[in-house]
């Protein structure tokens, strides 16, 4: 009786141990990125350590890390062309609603090797398993991974360097200290980027930690873009006045009569 109870307790301890044994401590090289017109892209660095919980010990090795960075949500239309009467026309469109404008999945090895499909799907890890909702009729839903619109959307975003899966994006400096390089391209949109760090071992999620970074575009070009977006009338009047002023100036400078 006693022996059986002790065994049950031991099994319980082993089962509960992995979820409570590790903690993640992370730190970002800079949490605010000011983007000017000369910005050609930058790698932000995230450092972190795997810490044992009080009274627990860590495994000597075998940890896996996945860092998911997602930019502010946006809605984008994906359009497909087909030949109609000899010319190429957009015949079909799908709207992706509130999907990340930027999405980077950085890991120390391919995510498919880190955990099973079910776990990846549940945790939304990897481009194939991230929820990308499309407007379908009055509803919104994600489609199967090999849906042609979904695949094209992801491919085009990858071409713009806005979506990426980097299986070597996380490097372990020691078995418990890691570093992840978050690549920010020049066309990274303004806003708050959520950073989600997940620790795995033997295919199971052990711990997670979150952080955020802010991308702020500054400089003259951004000022112009903001005015165009928010003060359309004033911006239009200004542009028109500039046009007429330059036309008038030319007529004064190059007066022919």
């Amino acid at each position, binding site marked *: 009786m006693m022996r059986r109870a002790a065994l049950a307790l031991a099994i319980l301890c082993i089962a509960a141990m992995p979820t409570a044994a590790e903690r993640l401590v992370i730190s970002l090289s800079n949490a605010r990125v000011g983007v000017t017109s000369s910005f050609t892209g930058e790698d932000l660095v995230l450092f972190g350590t795997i810490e044992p919980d009080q009274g627990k010990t860590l495994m000597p090795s075998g940890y896996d890390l996945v860092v998911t960075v997602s930019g502010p949500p946006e809605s*984008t239309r994906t359009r*497909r062309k087909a030949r109609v009467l000899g010319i190429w*026309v*957009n015949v079909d469109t799908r709207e992706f609603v509130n999907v990340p404008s930027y999405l980077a999945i950085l890991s120390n090895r391919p995510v498919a090797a880190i955990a099973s499909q079910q776990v990846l799907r549940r945790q939304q890890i990897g481009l194939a398993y991230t929820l990308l909702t499309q407007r379908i009729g009055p509803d919104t839903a994600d489609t199967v991974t090999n849906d042609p619109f979904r695949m094209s*959307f992801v491919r085009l975003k990858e071409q713009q360097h806005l979506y990426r899966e980097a299986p070597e994006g996380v490097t372990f400096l020691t078995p418990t200290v890691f570093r992840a390089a978050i690549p920010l391209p020049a066309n990274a949109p303004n806003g708050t980027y959520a950073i989600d760090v997940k620790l795995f071992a033997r295919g199971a999620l052990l711990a997670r930690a979150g952080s955020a970074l802010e991308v702020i575009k500054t400089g003259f*070009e951004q000022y112009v873009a903001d005015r*165009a977006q928010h003060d359309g009338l004033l911006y239009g009047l200004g542009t028109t006045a500039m*046009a007429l002023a330059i036309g008038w100036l030319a007529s004064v400078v190059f007066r022919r009569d």
Partner: protein
Amino acid sequence: MHPAFRRFLPLVDGRFALQIYLPIADLPVNMFLLLGMGLAIGYISGMFGIGGGFLLTPLLIFIGISPAVAVASVSPQIAASVFTGFLYYWRRRSIDFALGGMLLVGGIFGTALGVWFFTFLRAMDQLDLFIGLSYVTLLSIVGAIMIYESIRAELRARRGGPATLRRPGSHNWLHGLPFKLRFKRSKIYVSAIPVWGIGLIIGFVGAVLGIGGGFLLVPMLIYFLRVPTATVIGTSMMLTVITMASATLLHAVDNHLVDALLALLLMIGGVIGAQFGARTSQNMRGERLRLLLGLMVFAVGMRFAYDLVVTPEDLYSLRLVRGQ
């Protein structure tokens, strides 16, 4: 490439190239490329006395600026270059303000309609197609007519016949319409209906396609309304300045697509180029000029046709609907 141009190559792709970021087109471009394009189009526009929008808008599309931004940003550039010409004709008192005012009644309405239609097409994801198809149709027809007319005139001149074409008859069915008005400066007596109609068409086409429409408007005024050569250019410029200024304003308010930086660079190149073009044209025969322009217009039309017919590299494309 001509060796004289080779000296300027470092400005375009070498270490002196100055990249600037176009805020609305959302694209880094070489500043000298845009200034150079402005100069070239300005030169052509000065040479032929046209706004040049129908060449500039396609050129911007060909270097990778989205058709929507190209159309919206060329409007202020045309307004600037045509305003220079307008002031010149004003000083020479060869503008019929009464006729220009009546054209504007239709012109403003047409511009508003054009911008609305532009917004509608964009929402339907068919704007690029419409712009492409319209350019093919418009430019190949106008180009073909110009080539045909100038070759015929050239042949006639060679045979020693009279160089001028038959003067159009003094009356046509348009003169039978009601609401007749007398325009003193142009010495014409016509119905207001075709005047409004022409203004409407030019305003509409200009706003949707990013063209001033001078190359359509001048022939229309001559053939349909019998406006004399003394006032036709100045009056057409009066309409174009105001429709293009309104198009700029409406595109800025409705679509937020006017790239002021892009427009500014094009304007600077444009107004300078126009001065040199105007000088060259004085040393060239009119028929030769027309043939040259016709060939250019036709070639741009064909390029659009090619883009529509050839299989695109990627069948899929993205358009941002709403950011944060």
